[in-house]
C-alpha cells in the first residue's frame, strides 16, 4: 500500500511539472500584457522598454529556466497586475472556493442521492421518467441564466436573500444552488445507474430470496455498494467544482480561484496564471489520489500492488 502511495505521489509530481511546463509556454504564446498594464498613452518605446524590463523579449527557454530556478525556492513570481507575490494571492482565495464548492457538493448530494435511489427503485414509473428528464435539463441549462434568474426572483422580487458577495450563510445559498445544479443532475443519473446495476446482481436476489424486507435490502446492500463509485464521482465533481466555478463566481461576485484564474488568463498575468494553474493542478491530483485511496478502503476486494 505504501509503495502504491509513493508511486502515485511521484507520478503526481511528474504531472504537475508537466502542467507547469505547458502552461508556461502556452500562456506566453497567446499574447502579452504590455498594453493592458501600461497607461493608454504608452508609446512604442514605452512598450519595448517594459517588455525588456520584464524579460518578455528573452528566449522562452531562458525565461523558463529562470522561472524554475526561482520556483524551487518557493518564489512563484509577482503578479504583473497586482504587484504582489503570486502564490499568496492564489492561496488567500482557497477558503472562499472551498466554501462554495463544499456547499454546492452538499446540496447536490442531498438531492441527488435520494432522487437517484428512489428513481432506481421505481424505475420506468412516471417518477423515474420525470427525474431523468429533470436531470437532463439540469445538465444542459446555462449556468448564467439560472444564476441571474435566482437573483431576480429571490433577491430583487422577493427580497429574501442578498444579491451577491461573500458573507454569512444567506450569501451562500444562491451561488451554491447555481453551481450545484449541474452536479446534482449528473450525480442523480449516476446513482440511479449504479443502483440499477447493483440491484440486478445475485447477492441482492439472494437477500430477497432470504425474505428480508425490500427496503432494507435495497438501502443496506445496494446503496452501500453504489457508494463506492459514487465517491469516485464526488472526487471528480469536486475537481470540476473547484476549478470550473467561473460563471457562478462572476455573477455572484464570489472571491474564488476560478474568477481569479480566468481574469489572470485574460490579462496575460503570466506569474499569476502559473500560480493558479499549479495550485489547481495540485488540488486536482491530490483529490484524485484521495479518492482512489478511499475507494480501496471501502471495497475490500481492491488491492493495490
Amino acid at each position, binding site marked *: 500500500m505504501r509503495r502504491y502511495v509513493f508511486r502515485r505521489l511521484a507520478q503526481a509530481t511528474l*504531472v504537475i511539472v508537466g502542467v507547469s511546463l505547458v*502552461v508556461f509556454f502556452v500562456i506566453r504564446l497567446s499574447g502579452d500584457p504590455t498594453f493592458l498594464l501600461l497607461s493608454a498613452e504608452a508609446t512604442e518605446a514605452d512598450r519595448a522598454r517594459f517588455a525588456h524590463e520584464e524579460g518578455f523579449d528573452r528566449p522562452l527557454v531562458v525565461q523558463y529556466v529562470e522561472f524554475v530556478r526561482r520556483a524551487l525556492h518557493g518564489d512563484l513570481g509577482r503578479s504583473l497586475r497586482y504587484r504582489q507575490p503570486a502564490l499568496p494571492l492564489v492561496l488567500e482565495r482557497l477558503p472562499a472556493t472551498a466554501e462554495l464548492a463544499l456547499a454546492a457538493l452538499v446540496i447536490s448530494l442531498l438531492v441527488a442521492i435520494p432522487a437517484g435511489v428512489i428513481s432506481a427503485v421505481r424505475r420506468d414509473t412516471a417518477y423515474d421518467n420525470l427525474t431523468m428528464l429533470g436531470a437532463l435539463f439540469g*445538465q444542459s441549462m446555462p449556468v448564467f*441564466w439560472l444564476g441571474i434568474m435566482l437573483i431576480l426572483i429571490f433577491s430583487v422580487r422577493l427580497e429574501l436573500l442578498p444579491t451577491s458577495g461573500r458573507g454569512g450563510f444567506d450569501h451562500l445559498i444562491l451561488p451554491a444552488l447555481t453551481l450545484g445544479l449541474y452536479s446534482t443532475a449528473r450525480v442523480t443519473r449516476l446513482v440511479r445507474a449504479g443502483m440499477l446495476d447493483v440491484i440486478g446482481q445475485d447477492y441482492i436476489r439472494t437477500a430477497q430470496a432470504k425474505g428480508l424486507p425490500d427496503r432494507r435490502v435495497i438501502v443496506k446492500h445496494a446503496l452501500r455498494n453504489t457508494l463506492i463509485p459514487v465517491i469516485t*464521482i464526488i472526487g471528480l465533481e469536486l475537481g470540476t467544482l473547484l476549478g470550473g466555478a467561473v460563471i457562478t463566481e462572476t455573477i455572484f461576485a464570489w472571491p474564488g480561484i476560478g474568477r481569479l484564474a480566468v481574469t489572470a488568463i485574460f490579462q496575460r498575468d503570466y506569474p499569476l496564471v502559473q500560480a493558479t494553474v499549479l495550485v489547481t493542478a495540485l488540488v486536482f*491530483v491530490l483529490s484524485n489520489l484521495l479518492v482512489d485511496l478511499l475507494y480501496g478502503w471501502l471495497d475490500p476486494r481492491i488491492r493495490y500492488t
Partner: protein
Amino acid sequence: MARPADPVHVAVALALADAARPAPRSRRGRFVSTLVRKRAGVIGLVIVLLNVVLALSAPVLSPHDPLDQDVARRLLPPAWLAGGGPEHLLGTDQLGRDILSRIIYGSRISLLIGLLSVVLSLPIGVGLGLLAGYFTGRLDDITMRIADVQLAFPFILLAITIAGVLGPSPRNVILILAVGGWVVYARLARGQALSLREKEFIEAARGLGGGSFRILFRHMLPNVISPIIVVGTFGVAQMILLESSLSFLGLGVQPPTPSWGGMLNDGRAYITVAWWLTTFPGAAIMLTVLGINFVGDWLRDLLDPRLQSV
C-alpha cells in the same frame, strides 16, 4: 491483480449502465418496458432528425436571412406578445435580426461542431487508448500521464491559446473541443483493452500467431466499439454545450455567423429586458441535447446483449 479503478472509466461505465438492468420478470413487464424505452428512443430520433432537416434545408425553411440587420427594429418581442408581429415569430435580437431564422441556421453550426469534434477526437482517443491498454507498460504510463496533464490543465487557457495562435473560426473551435475531448475515449478504450487482453479468445488469437495489430483491429476493436459509440453520442451533446461556454469567453464561433451558444451569450446582457434572446436558443440546445441523449439510451439498449458479455 486488480488495478485501482480509473475514475473517468468508472464514471463512463456507470453512465453506460444507466439502462443496463435485469430483465423484468413477467412477459407483460418486458413488453411494457421495451415499449417505453422505444418511445423515448423514437422521440429522440425524431428530434435529431428534425435538427438535421433544419440544418440541411435552412435556406428553404427560414423566413428571413439570419444576417439581415435592421437596427431600428431591434429587440422586438415574439409574435404573441404586445409589440411583436407575425413577421418575426420569435422576435428579433439586439441588431434586429430574426431569431427564428438564426435558430434554424444555428442548428447547422451546432450540429457540425458537435459531430465533427466527436468524429475527430473519438478515433484518436480510441486508438491511443487501445494501444495503451493492450501494450501496457511504458506506453500506457506515458499516455495516461499526458491525459492527466491535460485534465489538470485549465480548458480556457487551451481555448484562448488555440484561438489566439490559429485564429477563431468554426474549424478551430472544433479543434479546441476535440483536443479537450479525446481523454474520455482514451480512458474508456484503455479500460476495455485492459480487461479484454486477458480473455481467452485473445490468448487464442495470439497462440495462433496473430500479429499485435491484427489482434487489435480484428478482435479488440469490435468489442470496444459499442460502448464507445454510446459515449460518443453523449459526447456530441456535451460538445454542443461546451461551444456555448466558449462563446461566453468570446472564443466561440465568430459573429455574425449564428450559433446557439453565441446567441445565448449575446442575449446575456438582455435577460431582464428581452428574455426571448436567451430563452429560445437555450430551449433549442436543451431539446437537442435531450434528443441526442434519448438516442444514446436507445443505442445502448440495442447493443445491450453485447455489453453484458463484456
